């Protein structure tokens, strides 16, 4: 009842996810230059330091790499790495929440599995 409406995610996380999504959707291709932190900052009207924080996460994970004096590029194998990472987090990000909500509604695991099987048949 006292919940508040809020932007649920940090901006730098959202910047990171936007770039990841663009790579997954082939909007940004491997070995292609990605927008600089200043370009991202201007585009979204955010502080460049925040944009840099999101981009640097991707550099640390070797999704992006820096070419000195030229800019930031999508690494080879980036798309596959993002998919692997997201698969690793799939249980924490989705399954855990699904089970918690099911638990509070009294839906059994068996019922859940039936739902999933039925939806697959669709």
């Amino acid at each position: 009842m006292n919940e508040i409406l809020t932007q649920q995610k940090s901006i730098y996380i959202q910047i990171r996810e936007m770039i990841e999504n663009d790579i997954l959707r082939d909007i940004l291709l491997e070995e292609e230059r990605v927008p600089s932190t200043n370009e991202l900052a201007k585009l979204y009207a955010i502080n460049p330091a925040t944009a840099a924080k999101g981009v640097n996460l991707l550099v640390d994970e070797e999704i992006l790499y820096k070419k000195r004096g030229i800019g930031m590029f999508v690494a080879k194998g980036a798309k596959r790495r993002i998919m692997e990472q997201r698969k690793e987090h799939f249980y924490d990000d989705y399954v855990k929440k699904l089970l918690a909500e099911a638990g509070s509604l009294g839906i059994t695991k068996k019922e859940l599995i039936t739902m999933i099987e039925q939806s697959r048949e669709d």
Partner: protein
Amino acid sequence: MSELVAKGVVKTYGHKNVLQDVDLTLEAGKIYGLIGRNGAGKTTLLSILTSQNPASAGSVTFDGQPVWENPQVLRHLCFSRELNQMTGNNANAMKIKEYLRIAATFFPYWDSEMEKRLVREFDLDVKKKISKLSKGMLSMVTIIVAFCSKAEFTFLDEPVAGLDVVARERFYELLVEEYTETGRTFVVSTHIIEEAAEVLEEVIILDQGKILLKENTQDLLERSVHISGHEDDVNKAAAGLHICREEHMGRSKGVAVLLEKGQQVPESADITIQRMTLQKIFVALCGEEHGHDR
């Protein structure tokens, strides 16, 4: 790198303490947000930082040099005050063109190309008198002065107050553009906190003449959480944490919490843990229950 430092700044008007022992260091190359309630002392602080108003006590220095009436320092500072149709040393009778011409002689690094570009972008009729301008146009003139001054440290007092939502968004775009291209330092005061939040590297909260908080905006957002649920569950989860504000409704309770380093709210299906917006954090810190009963 330049630095503007206020130490022990006090300002009293008669018996009223507007600023109480303010210590503040502003580093070069950052966008700061100054937020506070009406009467918190924001404009007074900005005017003292820029030598437009003498402090009752304390000092303000720029790279170690006193700011007060020091032309060597003041060439690097710009305080673009809120313009008003009625006041401002007869500025009201001036045309926009004349007002900007005076600003251009006052600020040694004035960029007249930028002035032309912004006048065009804002679609201002420079032959209009200041006294005939709408609130939005007055804001645009102060924004033009701030940007075109090219001062290393630029202070904007409520720059978006009169602007519509499209112009406000455009202002923040221009601010980020100018900042990424020049690395100038900007200090922006605003009541429309949420719109500014993502642009501000650091936020300074002024409450009743004192600096309540000065912190990296993202760090502050990350350590602020709202916990809600059954009163008993919320009390359990928030035990030992710094609670800034509480709300109740029947058995339900919500608390705004500022986490200290290493603290965490134990996750549980019984409670809802949410991020807070900068505006909600500000209200939790400076709202009625807190700000005024202290």
